[in-house]
């Protein structure tokens, strides 16, 4: 008993360590700002950023901007899933296509695809279509790669079971390959969604149109520095929440198998 309390004292739970470190960092930042070591005009102290949230909610329409941005990101991830899973299937199905394209797709996954935005601006104009299209571009590589990986890993004996019942290729996919690969595919969709959020906010910022990206851009132009950081902090917080929630869903999906 006594030794258990001792060890728990020596080694606090991970979550305490994590948030403790964050709190310490924020306190240090606040102190440095108040002491004048950091110009509040360049980086405002955490307290000011915190206080700006009221203004963000009431005057700047943070909730609407959030719904718009995430609506677009989800639309992009949905569309990207349909396209990505289809392409992933083709790369799995055709050995030649798999050899020819898989490495290129992997390279795309690590490239800053957000820089392609002028191309889409020309094609679609300065509107939601461009933003969703950029989101799709962002989420495709991980979804394609994970779909191929998942389908490649399906146990041959499971496919043989389907073959003995004379399943057509489509039903073989729907009844065996897809569910067998689903945990891996979901992992790809999850990463894809995060990439889509990054691209959507990035393009909104760059073309100053709709959602959180535009809001942050506007605030910067009006020198509302604290509120601008508030917006950025908000995007980061929401992204982190998404990361953890979808991670929980993923482990739940895996454990029910």
């Amino acid at each position, binding site marked *: 008993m006594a030794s258990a309390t001792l060890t728990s004292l020596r080694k606090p739970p991970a979550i305490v360590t994590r948030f403790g470190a964050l709190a310490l960092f924020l306190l240090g930042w606040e102190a440095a700002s108040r002491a004048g070591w950091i110009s509040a005009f360049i980086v405002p102290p955490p307290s000011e950023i915190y206080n700006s949230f009221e203004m963000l909610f009431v005057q700047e329409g943070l909730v609407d901007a959030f719904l718009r941005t995430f609506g677009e990101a989800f639309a992009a991830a949905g569309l990207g899933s349909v396209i990505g899973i289809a392409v992933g299937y083709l790369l799995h199905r055709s050995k030649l296509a798999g050899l020819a394209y898989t490495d290129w797709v992997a390279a795309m996954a690590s490239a800053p695809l957000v820089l392609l935005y002028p191309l889409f601006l020309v094609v679609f104009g300065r509107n939601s279509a461009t933003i969703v299209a950029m989101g799709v571009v962002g989420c495709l590589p991980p979804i394609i790669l994970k779909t191929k990986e998942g389908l490649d890993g399906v146990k041959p004996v499971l496919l043989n*079971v389907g*073959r003995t*019942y004379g399943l057509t290729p489509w039903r073989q996919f729907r*009844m065996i390959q897809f*569910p*067998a690969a689903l945990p891996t595919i979901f992992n790809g969709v999850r990463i894809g969604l995060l990439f889509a959020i990054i691209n959507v906010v990035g393009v909104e910022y760059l073309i100053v149109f709709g959602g959180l990206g535009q809001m942050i851009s506007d605030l910067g132009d009006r020198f509302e520095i604290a509120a601008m950081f508030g917006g950025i902090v908000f995007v980061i917080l929401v992204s982190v929440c998404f990361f953890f929630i979808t991670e929980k869903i993923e482990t739940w999906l895996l454990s*029910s198998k």
Partner: protein
Amino acid sequence: MTPALSIQNVAKTFSTAQGDVRALDHVSIDIRAGEFVSVIGPSGCGKSTLMNIVGGLVDDYEGEVHLDGALVRGCQKQIGVVFQEESTFPWRTAIDNVAFPMEAAGLPREARMARARELLELVGLNGFENRFPSELSGGMRQRIAIARTLAFQPRILLMDEPFAALDEQTRLLLGDKVLQIQQELNQTTLLITHNIAEAVQLSDRVLIMSFRPGRIKRVIDIDLPRPRSSKLMGGEKFGQYVAAIWEDLREEASKGLQDMERVRAGA
């Protein structure tokens, strides 16, 4: 009378990086409708290969497979297969696994669930309907796979060591049940096994295969009265069959063992 299943001069060579492996060498078997035939042989003699060929899962082989006198290639819906490897679908519950072939055939939900429940009961898994395979033991998973194949009532049943993952008691009881269904439905059955007693208990004929390349070395008719059950096992005649099969098999098995030792020494 034309045999229900006829395997004619089937041979198969695998090409690997280490060279060609002759897995099967001109195997011919005729099986009457309703007959229960077992194939027994040392590990690696090509039993699974033979089953995959008959099941239509291997394309490039020599020889022919006939069903009721007609040449067939590829998978046939009248042939049901129980695989040697773990083959349950991990994302489906026990009952949904068993209902799978009926779902594929488009049977309405009510009907297939009722049938699946029946079959689960038959293999002693009532109460486990809604468990996922990961929550069950290896032997239970194999019973699900057996139930899944039986549920579809295939005219021809191929089983590749279906009882290998089971303990001795379950193996005997399940063998009795499979035999009972097989007799009721008059299913033509090809069973692959390692277990001599099991082969004698269930079969009309036992085929002994030689070590690589796999050939039919000897055929032993099991002339024991039906209906049979595992109670048969104490009998004198039963013991004689087991001894006779072991006599033949021992030579092949020791060849297999020597081969394994050679590989180990070479590696």
